[in-house]
């Protein structure tokens, strides 16, 4: 059920990534200030945007779980957060590489954008021990949903706070007052964003399918071990 449409989605993702990389290296002009180093922008920024949106989506799924009590939403929420944490790792590493090349340091502690993303990432890193510290499955899902909603609400607040902070070293390239991105760079960026977004959706679907298969296998084993006539089949993947 979760695997439906996975194949065309995977093909679309690979195609989008190929087009994106082609645009990055053969179409987008070199940045006048940073030169070739700026190519990291087309990877790092879409990864960060998709990771942050993924955290918020995890919170939205958690709301749906608490409202309906349907464990499928909990699985969606868990996998969204899980995938965004993986993307978050990529954001931190690519950001550090860019920082080293541009600023000469792997990390700058007085830069609000970097530190705020690290705070968000570390907050979500606590999601796993928090979730798995609770043994009862119902309570685990409920508490994890509360966490996902609270943390998900923190993400846009954090983003706005950082935007209001006057940074000297982290440029605001989407602002139009100081020129912003030229058309070719903007197109490349948007295609990269689409490609990374598609990658996130594909991996979420992939993970859900694997979890669903694993959960159904467990059910099958239980059914073979102790058949329960009239037992209702659950379709939601078990998050364990």
């Amino acid at each position, binding site marked *: 059920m979760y695997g439906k449409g996975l194949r065309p989605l995977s093909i679309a993702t690979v195609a989008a990534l190929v087009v994106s990389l082609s645009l990055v290296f053969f179409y987008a002009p*070199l940045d006048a200030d940073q*030169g070739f180093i700026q190519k990291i922008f087309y990877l790092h920024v879409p990864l960060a945007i998709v990771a942050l949106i993924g955290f918020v989506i995890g919170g939205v799924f958690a709301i749906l779980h608490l409202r309906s009590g349907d464990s499928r939403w909990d699985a969606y929420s868990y996998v969204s957060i899980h995938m965004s944490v993986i993307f978050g790792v990529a954001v931190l*590493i690519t950001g550090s590489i860019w920082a080293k090349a541009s600023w000469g340091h792997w990390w700058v502690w007085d830069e609000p954008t970097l530190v705020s993303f690290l705070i968000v990432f570390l907050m979500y890193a606590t999601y796993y021990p928090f979730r798995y510290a609770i043994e009862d499955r119902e309570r685990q899902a409920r508490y994890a949903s509360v966490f996902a909603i609270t943390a998900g609400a923190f993400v846009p607040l954090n983003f706005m706070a950082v935007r209001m902070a006057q940074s000297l070293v982290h440029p605001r390239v989407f602002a139009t007052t100081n020129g912003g991105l030229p058309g070719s760079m903007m197109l490349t960026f948007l295609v990269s964003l689409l490609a990374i977004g598609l990658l996130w959706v594909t991996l979420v679907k992939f993970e859900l399918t*694997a979890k669903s298969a*694993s959960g159904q296998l467990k059910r099958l*084993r239980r059914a073979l*071990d102790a058949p329960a006539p009239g037992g209702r089949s659950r379709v939601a*993947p078990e998050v364990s």
Partner: protein
Amino acid sequence: MLALLAATPALPLDEAGKYVAGAYVVFLALIVIYVAIMAAKLQRIERELGELAAFAEARATADQAAPGRESETPSISDSLASHGSRGGGA
């Protein structure tokens, strides 16, 4: 393209190229690691499914051989435990 790269005011290409390559390689490596982990999980699911199918077939055969009697095949937990299988997710 090379002329453009040569004219770039920032780091020279031999310096900048390794950072850009590093960033993209890290991204690729993360995806490859993720896919490898998922492939391992898929293999485990496939193996367990095969074991379950074999168990179900063995039980069906035993039931056919002795209808009305309680199946004498071992429980599925015992059967799978001997293969060291786990049923956990990610």
